[in-house]
């Protein structure tokens, strides 16, 4: 019963910490204090999920539960000097958080159209933002989600992007969350996009790659997409090798809108991305794509839910994973087609390339269809590099290692090519190249 007691102890530790946290944050509005205490209650009741939990069957979170923040205050050190240049994206508005707290000195927000708010959640709360009060925790439920409950109870900061109706923001908004070893952060993001508006958001989590010390980042992102709006979202997990990263994205969509998200994971020791999209109106188009590359003993778990709640919606999902060393991947793609959701068109594919004998993937497409006039397709492939393709390249004089690299890169490029933001795509091409070199 060691498992249980270990998780119980961790849970107890967070409950204890919350008492101190609440005292520290005595200035907070009552609604928020109430919300936090409800969330903590749920966390205390749920506890950290064990592998007996269906949704966590393949991912053991005990290392996360065991993790404790180190006492000495971490400094920006190399992170501040090495970049944000290292992470810079040409032409994007940039907001940076360091260990979960907004760092205005590293941020650079350009001119934005009137009525648009792009700021830290902490700042919005300090200004008694009604928008935040009305929408925070409205989409991402914590009743049955321990990590969402934990985040809701403990979050300090994150991003607020509020775009009113009929506004197009041309430049991408780049939200960069940097962490140092030994720290813990609970970023909380709220993206509210009005009717007929358009915005591109890049949510990036990164750390010092050479850092040997673990840290824990548990993010929750809530997105509301208005009628006929268009949101192009990107989630990058370029965390340090020793990082634990858990993130939940909950998207609520209104009719005629388009939402797409690309989840790219190269970093982190234990990563769980949960992406849920609810199509709450007709004629919606949702895209959830993902690419992950794991090496050494990385565990990368992607869970998605496409919830077709209304008729005439289309969803697209393409995931590709490359696993080397002793790394493990999990892909769980749920598609719900509710009783009313006639004329649904749902497509899902997930492909995995295993580069070593010890690498492992657990892939599970899950279709739950209650309507009868729908089109749902899914495909999963797991395999090694194609021998015929490998021979073809070698027969032209390209040596074996280079040929393997070319094919591995091509496998991943299929996903990266779908990213529309050119500077981001180019940067990720470089990151991919470096990552593939490191896992080879």
């Amino acid at each position, binding site marked *: 019963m060691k498992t249980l007691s270990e998780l119980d102890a961790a849970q107890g530790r967070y409950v204890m910490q919350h008492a101190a946290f609440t005292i520290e944050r005595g200035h907070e509005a009552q609604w928020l204090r109430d919300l936090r205490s409800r969330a903590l209650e749920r966390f205390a009741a749920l506890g950290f999920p064990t592998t007996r939990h269906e949704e966590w069957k393949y991912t053991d979170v005990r290392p996360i539960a065991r993790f404790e923040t180190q006492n000495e205050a971490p400094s920006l050190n190399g992170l501040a000097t090495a970049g944000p240049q290292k992470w810079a994206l040409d032409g994007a508005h940039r907001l940076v958080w360091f260990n979960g707290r907004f760092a205005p000195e590293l941020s650079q927000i350009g001119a934005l159209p009137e009525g648009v708010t792009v700021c830290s959640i902490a700042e919005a709360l300090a200004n008694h933002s009604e928008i935040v009060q009305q929408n925070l925790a409205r989409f991402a439920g914590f009743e049955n989600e321990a990590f969402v409950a934990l985040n809701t109870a403990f979050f300090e900061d994150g991003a607020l992007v509020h775009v009113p109706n009929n506004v197009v923001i041309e430049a991408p908004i780049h939200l960069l969350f940097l962490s140092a070893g030994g720290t813990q952060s609970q970023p909380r993001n709220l993206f509210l996009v009005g009717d007929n508006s358009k915005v591109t958001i890049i949510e990036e989590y990164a750390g010092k790659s050479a850092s040997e010390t673990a840290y824990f980042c548990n993010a929750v992102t809530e997105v509301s997409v208005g009628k006929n709006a268009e949101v192009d979202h990107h989630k990058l997990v370029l965390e340090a090798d020793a990082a634990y990263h858990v993130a939940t994205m909950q998207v609520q969509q209104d009719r005629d809108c388009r939402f797409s998200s690309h989840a790219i994971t190269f970093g982190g020791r234990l990563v769980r991305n949960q992406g849920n999209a609810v199509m709450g109106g007709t004629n919606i188009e949702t895209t959830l794509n993902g690419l992950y590359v794991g090496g050494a003993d990385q565990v990368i778990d992607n869970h998605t839910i496409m919830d077709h709640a209304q008729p005439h919606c289309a969803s697209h999902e393409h995931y590709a994973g490359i696993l080397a060393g002793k790394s493990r991947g999990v892909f769980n793609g749920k598609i719900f087609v509710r009783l009313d959701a006639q004329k649904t068109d749902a497509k899902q594919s997930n492909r995995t390339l295993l580069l070593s004998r010890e690498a492992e993937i657990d892939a599970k497409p899950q279709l739950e269809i209650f309507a009868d006039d729908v089109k749902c397709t899914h495909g999963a492939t797991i395999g090694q590099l*194609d021998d*015929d*393709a490998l*021979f*073809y*390249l*070698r*027969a*032209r*004089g*390209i*040596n*074996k290692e*280079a*040929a393997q690299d*070319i*094919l591995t*890169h*091509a*496998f991943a*490029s*299929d996903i990266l*090519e779908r990213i529309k933001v050119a500077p981001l795509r180019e940067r990720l091409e470089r990151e991919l190249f470096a990552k593939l070199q490191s896992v080879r």
Partner: protein
Amino acid sequence: MQEKQVILEIRDLHARVEDKEILRGINLTVNAGETHAIMGLNGSGKSTLAQVLAGREEYEVTQGEVLYKGENLLDMAPDERAQKGVFLAFQYPVEIPGVNTSYFLRAALNSIRKAHGEEEMDATQFLKLVRQKMGIVELDKSFLSRSINEGFSGGEKKRFEIFQMAVLEPTLGILDETDSGLDIDALRIVANGVNTLKNEGNAFVVVTHYQRLLNYIVPDFVHILMDGRIVQTGDKQLAIDLDTSGYKQLQEAAR
């Protein structure tokens, strides 16, 4: 007269795939400046021979040897063979989505140049070379931005094979049923490509089922392959005779 350089010498070559013996004692000498046609029915072993020469690992050589310019070819990895000037035009060129043709061809050319101790070609030099070679097989430059063979028609795939051969300038070009599935225009383009590349220093082995291609690529020697052995060798007339009399007669004569 100066002695011709021997490019390829195959001695008593036996090869099998899994438990099936396909090549059962091939002997063949190819000199510089020569074109050899290898003809035979399906299953006679002609494609196997082409694949074995290119280094395909599925085939196990059980007996005999192959010398390429005096070196043991069978000891070399496929990439090493290509770097030394052996080129196989595939019967079924492989589609490789996500790998740009131009990137691929430059990587191939540069690894060959590197193996020869030559400097790598930069993008500008490469583009110049490629433009010049594309004319040989009447390929459009839009090919350069496509993925390798992806969505190419049968004829485009074969033309792309010959185009690669034009860029890589091999010493020994092996054409594995390059004519299969080609219409007469594509056949002419492919043959012209090969004829343009022919010179005194290189050699070609053309594997084919039909005589038709040999009207365009005129061979110095024609070899008939049957049950894994060369049963008859002659000049281009042999191919013409074969076309009229058919393999069947030959088969009976061989018995």
